[in-house]
């Protein structure tokens, strides 16, 4: 089992690295889909298969499709202007801060199991205990629909213009 963990984690980190550093946006989107798949595998072996399915379908499926769609409209762009924070500084500050954090978590502050008396049923907890989350998600869905409309608006308007020109 540790070997499985090791392989999944290594692949996850590699593909995340690729997703952010690879040249070409289409490649980045594909690597992101890979990251999402590996995340869902990790979530699955951590013991929540339901969430893994959602992550796989939404993260690897929907978002990737939308990414590819958006990139096909925008096209790739090479940005050449200088960066604010030099590369070496960015790398060092990320490594230092998160290295410290990882050290902290691993060495000293691993959270441990508390004595939870009753483990509530998932649906009860989801629909009753965390009502405010549900309201939030409702609002988010509406804004997501608006976002999708915005996303396809240029393509549709272009189509309409072409139709008029004919």
């Amino acid at each position, binding site marked *: 089992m540790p070997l499985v963990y090791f392989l999944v984690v290594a692949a996850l980190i590699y593909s995340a690295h690729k997703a952010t550093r690879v040249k070409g946006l289409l490649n980045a989107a594909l690597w992101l889909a890979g990251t999402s798949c590996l995340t869902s595998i990790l979530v699955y072996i951590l013991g929540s298969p339901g969430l893994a399915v959602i992550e796989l379908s939404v993260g690897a499926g929907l978002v990737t499709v939308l990414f590819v769609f958006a990139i096909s409209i925008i096209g790739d762009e090479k940005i050449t202007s200088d*960066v604010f924070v030099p590369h070496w500084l*960015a790398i060092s*500050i990320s490594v230092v801060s998160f290295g410290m954090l990882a050290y902290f978590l691993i060495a000293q502050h691993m959270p441990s199991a508390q004595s939870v008396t009753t483990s509530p049923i998932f649906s009860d907890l989801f629909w009753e205990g965390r009502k405010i989350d549900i309201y939030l998600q409702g609002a988010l869905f509406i804004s997501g629909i608006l976002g999708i409309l915005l996303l396809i608006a240029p393509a549709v308007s272009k189509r309409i213009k072409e139709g008029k020109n004919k």
Partner: protein
Amino acid sequence: MAGILIPFLIFTPWLTAILVWFISDKHEEGLHQFASAGAILSAILSLLLLSQIGDSTISFAKIGPLFGNLSFSTDALGIILACIANCIGSLTVIFSAEYMKHEKSLARYYSMVLLFIGAMSGLVLTANIFMIFFFWEITALCSYQLISFYNDDPNAVRGGLKALFITQFGGIGLMVAGLLIFGYTNSFEIGRFIQAAQGGEIPANVLGIIGFTLIIAATAKSAQFPFFTWLPDAMEAPTPVSALIHAATMVNAGVYLLCRFFPALEAIPGWKMTILILGLITILISSLMAIFATDLKRVLAYSTVSQLGYMFAAIGAGSVLACQFHLLSHAIFKALLFLCAGAIIHSCGTRDMYKMGGFFKKIPFISVTFIIGSLALAGIPILNGFWSKELILESIHSGTPIIIYILMLFSVILTALYTIRCVWLVFFGEPRSDLHVHDAPFLMALPLGILSLGTITSWLVFEPFSRSLSNSLPLYGIPKETLSELVSKIFWDPYTFLALGMVAIGILVWFLRNKLPLHNSITRKIESISLNSFGFEAINNGVVNGINAASEAIRNIQTGSLNWNIFGMLIGLICILIALMIGGL
């Protein structure tokens, strides 16, 4: 019933504000009528709410454990203040229809005034400290916006910023107190806090910190010593706004806050004494400044500060009833005075009292109403100011050291002196310049008439006032008194006549001003110190300038670049981790 009325009371002005914004400046008549309609509707709702006074708490949506319930209390303390805010609010909106005629950006004006009215109702009705903070900040925002309403005038912009900074300072005090209360009682409910404080669940030192941070919040909002200099500068606002926000309602929020938390905090050693002394210092300083000011609105502003000082002194003497009764009287007569001043300034175009004079014959109606208001301010029987001020003096006499009572009597002389000076300079004597003035048109005269009627008669409601306060606030120890008890108590008390004698001395000093040896170096020195606000002007200006300079300097690191911001976040993370490591874990 109250559960329906309270949300309506808050949302009617707010909805009207939004709709007014949509009507826009093109339809001026429509704006005036629509805003007046909304304000009058909310005033009617607030009067209906008066019948719902009780000691229940109404909870709306449960937001979750972190913010407490969206709850409102229906006790008399809140409802009476909401009623004052809405009624005076509607009168000032009606007054504005004439005063603000043909001004630019009226939509902004009306929507801010209406937003303020709704927020004030919310502030006084809610029973949740978090919500108090929320509404408190909205009122500060509206106050800032309306002071800087003429935003091409640098004085107005500066006055607005000053008010904003200083009241925000008070807001920090309120926030600290709220967080401490939440930390120790695990709830934002005020009722729960009072219970915990009286039951000794909160450590004494923490309770002390809560009490004194609330004093900071209240003094900043109510323009008390040492934060009082923002209120005179706030007089750059349009006069109806001064009447509503800076005389009748918002500045009372600090007094309200102290009254609301009174039973929880009164046992803190030194708490009541601090409030009493702060109030007393404020009364003396601001009365002296009012005697030497030349600007009509500034005189009224200083007198507002000093009357708020009376309310603070009443709380310090332990009498919430006297404080609230004076709050009611003061809101009515001071709104009347400000609206009269507005009518005068509107017709003659200057605020300098030394350019006025002899107006009594030219504008009899405004003169009569103004004189009614100023007699109430000076404490002449049988106007409402007399009763409430005597009540305060009586509670101070019975509950505090005698030296404080003597100083209060001295301040009564000063009050009478600056009132008679103001009335005399504006309405009597020879005209000092050929200003053209005309009497109030109907829409101005209507609010003035209603308010002066209120000034003459509002003390008659004392009996239901004290009964409802006493019934709905059992923890506050408010006595139930009838009107006849009040009248007999005050008329058979020799100290009342002492106070009236002081008023007479004040008036005599003005009429004998040329015969008394007043023109010597001491009075001149006092005058020059008073005109400089006893040096506090400089301190407060320093604070305002410092905040301005600091924000200009800090703005440079706000580049708006994402990369830079993320970089800053990571540095912050490192700092937190280092702090945790040093913290010993």
